[in-house]
């Protein structure tokens, strides 16, 4: 499904966090949101699925404003993977993933919901973790379980807020490879990322945010020395090698 962001604005207690944000994201795109801390990446993600209500503008899913969807309808189209959760109650991994079926469940999960859950666990090679306590998993495993839970919503759009921020490099690659596969299957991915090298390597589109505004948006061509230096206020060196681009920070 395609996403159209039309001139949206959002402010926290009068402090503007997003201003005049516009973009179009096509079905199956893998878009990375990059920018310094506080630039509005998380806020934009939360505005895209209605967790936060925009004060101006609209977000359209296939030309239909998200405000026109019922909450359950929207949750069946868009799934959200938070950066982390302050989880208190102890649940099994299976139960956590089953929670993703919530938009389809009224009183209790149907046979079909349990089946979808077990298939997703199987696809993501989480079978061996299914009956483990979620709290006892490593950060990397937990992150993959969060993605599994999002996939249980059978969404067309996946929004992820810094999903690899706390992971070692191996788990980072594992998560991003998984997302790449999902986007190849036609799921639209929007991901907030701090690691700009990973963004360049995996994303098909990049959206740079600074101070709540779109600083630059497009394909890899926007990864220029000048753009990165102005975006983060640092000095960088860009090395291009065959098809790869590496960004090396040099100093302030």
């Amino acid at each position, binding site marked *: 499904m395609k996403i159209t962001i039309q001139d949206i604005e959002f402010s926290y207690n009068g402090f503007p966090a997003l201003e005049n944000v516009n973009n179009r994201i096509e079905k199956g795109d893998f878009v990375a949101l990059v920018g310094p801390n506080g630039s509005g990446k998380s806020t934009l993600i939360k505005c895209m699925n209605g*967790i936060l209500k925009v004060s101006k503008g609209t977000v359209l899913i296939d030309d239909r404003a998200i405000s026109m969807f*019922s909450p359950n*309808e929207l949750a069946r189209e868009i799934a959200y993977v938070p950066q982390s959760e302050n989880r208190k109650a102890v*649940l099994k991994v299976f139960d956590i993933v089953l929670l993703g079926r*919530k938009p389809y469940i009224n009183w209790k999960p149907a046979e079909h919901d349990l*089946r979808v859950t077990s298939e997703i666990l199987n696809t993501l090679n989480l*079978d061996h973790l*299914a009956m483990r306590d979620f709290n006892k998993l490593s950060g990397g495993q937990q992150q993959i379980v969060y993605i599994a839970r999002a996939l249980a919503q059978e969404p067309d759009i996946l929004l992820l807020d810094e999903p690899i921020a706390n992971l070692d490099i191996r788990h980072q690659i594992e998560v991003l490879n998984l997302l790449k596969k999902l986007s190849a299957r036609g799921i639209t991915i929007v991901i907030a990322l701090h690691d700009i090298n990973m963004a360049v390597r995996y994303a098909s589109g990049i959206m740079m945010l600074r101070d709540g505004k779109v600083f630059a948006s497009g394909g890899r061509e926007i990864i220029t020395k000048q753009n990165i230096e102005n975006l983060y206020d640092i000095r960088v060196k860009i090395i291009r090698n065959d098809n790869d681009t590496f960004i090396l920070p040099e100093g302030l």
Partner: protein
Amino acid sequence: MSEQVLSQYYNFRKKRILFILFLLLLLFIIIIYSLFSGSADIGLRDIYSLITGTGQAVSRQIIYNIRLPRIAGAFLAGMALSVSGAVIQSILRNPLASPFTLGISGASAFGAAFAIIVLGAGSSYAGSNDMAIINNPYVVTVSAFLWSLCSVAVIIVLSKYKGATPEIIILSGIIISSLFGAGISAMQYFSDNIQLASIVFWTFGDIGRASWNNCLIIAVVVSLVMVFFISQSWNYKALQSGDEYARSLGVNVSRVRLTGLVVASLVTAVVVSFYGIIAFVGLVVPHIVRRIIGGDEQFLIPASAIGGGTFLLFSDTLARTIISPVILPVGILTSFAGAPLFLFLLIKGMGKDYWT
């Protein structure tokens, strides 16, 4: 492979259902035990004659009009307090929450004191055994209930207009409690001895006040509340993962939290108005149940309800018989038993990922 996971999950779910069945069995045993223990000597041997109606009229009177309503009252009150505790802990994401977190106990005790002193419901009449008597229990009950609605109203206003977070709700509960506590102290200061005794006597939670009439009212309320909580269990489960994530699943977070709090508070207020303040059931029982079957509300809610009812019935039976013929108010016993039990759970749970 996914079939295997599925069957593992079915087995896991079966264990939780078995636990609920075990609780029902335990309940049944305690009901039978409770029915035939007490000051009057009615033994299991009398059961046949009681059912067929051939036994002594006195025994029948004791069983049908004293012990049975008391058993029903204890079970229903325990059920209401425990399920409210489980739900409030879930929706406030706080292990210390209980039905009394929101100031219900303070508010209803104030209401009772108000009725006894200002409305004169507790007359200056002392029974032959020097026990303070509340000569108009209905006025006291209604006043306790109406005042406890005040604390519910404060929560509604806070959530509705300020979008209160769980932390703010808990803190405001503490403040409401201390405010009503001050009110009770002021009333007590201006009361005479008998009124003072009536107030203190009322605040001891006591199932001895159970009658078929108040059981019926509580039964209707508890049944409706159970249906409501079970219908909401997936919403509560989503709230456990945080407000933002719950919203992304299509949950109307503020409405679910508010209705849950109000319904839990109302059912608590009903129980407290009839039977007084029975502490710890709403705190300890959901904790024990969580420990055994985990924090999945789909099972936690029914298991806490049955577990709470069983626990309070057991405590009340003990309270009736432990120093027979003196009958202790069960509130004293639950506090005595509950506090060390809770401490034990805390110490045992230290270092575990359980409500960390």
